[in-house]
């Protein structure tokens, strides 16, 4: 089962001829992901790692109508156009890896995607992986193993850290979703929690949050209101972050007295989630719960 991606996922990589695009295309192919086309305007007719390149997503879709997901590896100034192009061409799932996209742009394309019933993961995210089936992103695949824990996270390397300890604990992951570190993301914790709730393979969920915004608090209300059936283990980064400072991610900032780690941990605890004090404790808690 798993969520979002599986062995049926057929991928177009937008920005495939770039340094990052070609590097990660190779790594995804090695993992076994099915990349059927790439798009870079002006580079149509070339191939990258054996994958045919087209000038537009529309052309790629005409030649490969099985495409059902896109990965965007286009520099920030051009990324919004790439997203609109994928939406208009009818791609149903778009993973936006690109960092530093202006928030006004993401606000608009995320809204446009929602109105068109298209799912967006990101921006500024590592992507999605269903171990053993499909890696649609830039994460190191070997850290993950097939299992029963769903991961949803605002962070990249911290996800790898925790996924690794889950793998070592012998539990493995159903799907890991990096929703991104920007203030506004296409998918929220709630969206992914809801998908994991319906997924039979997923027996527990790990939520990796950080300072800034109120996405963790809203997830806590959702867990409480739905009496979420599966155990949720949460880790929140940034307990030592000072207010008013952006901690690397555009979205990681305690502003106007809101969005600090302690209050997020408190909301999640009172909603019935198990909150880990350190990344390693996440796997320990899971082992006890499963």
């Amino acid at each position, binding site marked *: 089962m798993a969520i979002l991606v599986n062995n049926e996922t057929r991928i177009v990589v937008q920005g495939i001829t770039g340094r990052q695009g070609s590097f990660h295309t190779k790594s995804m192919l090695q993992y076994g992901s099915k990349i059927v086309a790439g798009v870079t305007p002006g580079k149509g007719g070339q191939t990258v790692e054996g994958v045919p390149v087209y000038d537009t997503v529309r052309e790629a879709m005409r030649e490969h109508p099985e495409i059902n997901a896109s990965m965007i590896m286009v520099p920030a100034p051009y990324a919004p156009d790439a997203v609109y192009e994928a939406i208009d061409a009818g791609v149903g799932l778009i993973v936006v890896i690109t960092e530093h996209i202006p928030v*006004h742009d993401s606000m608009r394309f995320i809204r446009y995607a929602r109105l068109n019933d298209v799912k967006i993961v990101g921006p500024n995210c590592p992507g999605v992986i269903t171990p053993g089936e499909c890696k649609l992103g830039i994460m190191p695949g070997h850290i993950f193993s097939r299992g029963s824990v769903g991961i949803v996270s605002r962070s990249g*390397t911290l996800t*790898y850290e925790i996924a690794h300890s889950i793998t070592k604990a012998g539990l493995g992951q159903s799907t890991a979703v990096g929703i991104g570190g920007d203030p506004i993301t296409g998918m929220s914790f709630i969206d992914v929690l809801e998908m994991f709730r319906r997924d039979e393979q997923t027996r527990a969920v790990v939520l990796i949050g*950080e300072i800034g*915004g109120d996405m963790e608090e809203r997830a806590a209300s959702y867990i409480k209101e739905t009496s979420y059936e599966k155990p949720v283990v949460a880790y929140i980064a940034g307990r030592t972050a000072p207010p008013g400072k*952006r901690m*690397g991610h555009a979205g990681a900032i305690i502003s106007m007295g809101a969005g600090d780690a302690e209050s997020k941990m408190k909301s999640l605890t009172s909603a019935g989630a198990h909150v880990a004090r350190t*990344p390693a404790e996440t796997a320990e808690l899971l082992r006890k719960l499963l």
Partner: protein
Amino acid sequence: MKLHEYESRELFTAYGIPVPRYGLARNGEEALKIAREIGGRVVVKAQVLVAGRGKAGGIKFADTPEEAAEITSKMLGTEIKGEKVESVLISEYQEVEGELYLSVIIDRSRGMPLVIASPEGGVEIEELARTSPEKLIQLHVDPLIGLRQHHIRNVQNFMDLDESHSKQLSQILTSLYRLFVENDCELAEINPLAITSGGLVAIDAKILIDDNSLFRHSQFQRSEVGGSFEVEARRMGFSYVELDGDIGIIGNGAGLTMATMDVVKEMGGRPANFLDIGGGASEEIVEKAASLLLRHPRVRVLFVNVLGGITRCDEVARGLVSAVKAHGAGKKVVVRMMGTREEEGKKILRESGLYPYDSMEEAAQMAAQLAQG
């Protein structure tokens, strides 16, 4: 990025939002000239970005141009909450009959712009939202559709001003929303929007521009000056935040670096900083980052925590070893590495007398112990 008050006024003027007459002065003579042109009582306002400058002596009133010049000369070069005053705004003094509040902000929760207005301006809006939320109106705007007449009518009805002021409010809100969108603002706030005998006037403003949008707003780009570690680190391209402890923290990725700080604190240590080298950092980048922190006067222990994905542990090890050779005297170094080329990286560290850890928690505990000893 926060705009200076004079930059906000320039923007307001360009968008037809009324502001008091003003000029920017960098010395007493300029202040004298501007105050003479304005005539009458003026306000001298220090151009600093820190909040609460009024209470810290950064806003003063002058009855004559000579007084304005004198205040300016005294104010320039002083520090307000640690920020040096390089220039002052000389602004026309206006008798205020009432104060309103008006802003457009990005609402992260809904992913939409939010218009906020209140007939009680001049106070902290967060405070007002907490104590008397009924005194403000909040309206979401669809980012694809933009501000419509119904938003404006709702604000007008809520504010209940007389006809001419209400009409003016409509124009100001329309302009403010346009300014907000066209300049990639995270926040465009007028507080207070004063009611004066001449109509509504934006007396003070706070405008935050999205850092990620600066590539298309060259007018706001500024080079950071000064020799602080924060500025130096950012100039090198790192995400850096200064803290007050003695354990220097280097990590790859914002979440992991934050978690590293937290675990160090959990183990009884005190982080000196947050430094994220990002993804795929080369040997040179690691060397720069490590050298910077090893030169930091407060850092006693350097804790490097790297999870290799696109970042390679051997590159990190090589960069770190050369930094320690050059700047490591008297400092202790703790390394935790895992992932791509982990074994090669660890071997390089061991050959140079550095002992790598597998677990982030154990490494953090050691860093905390070393800092205390």
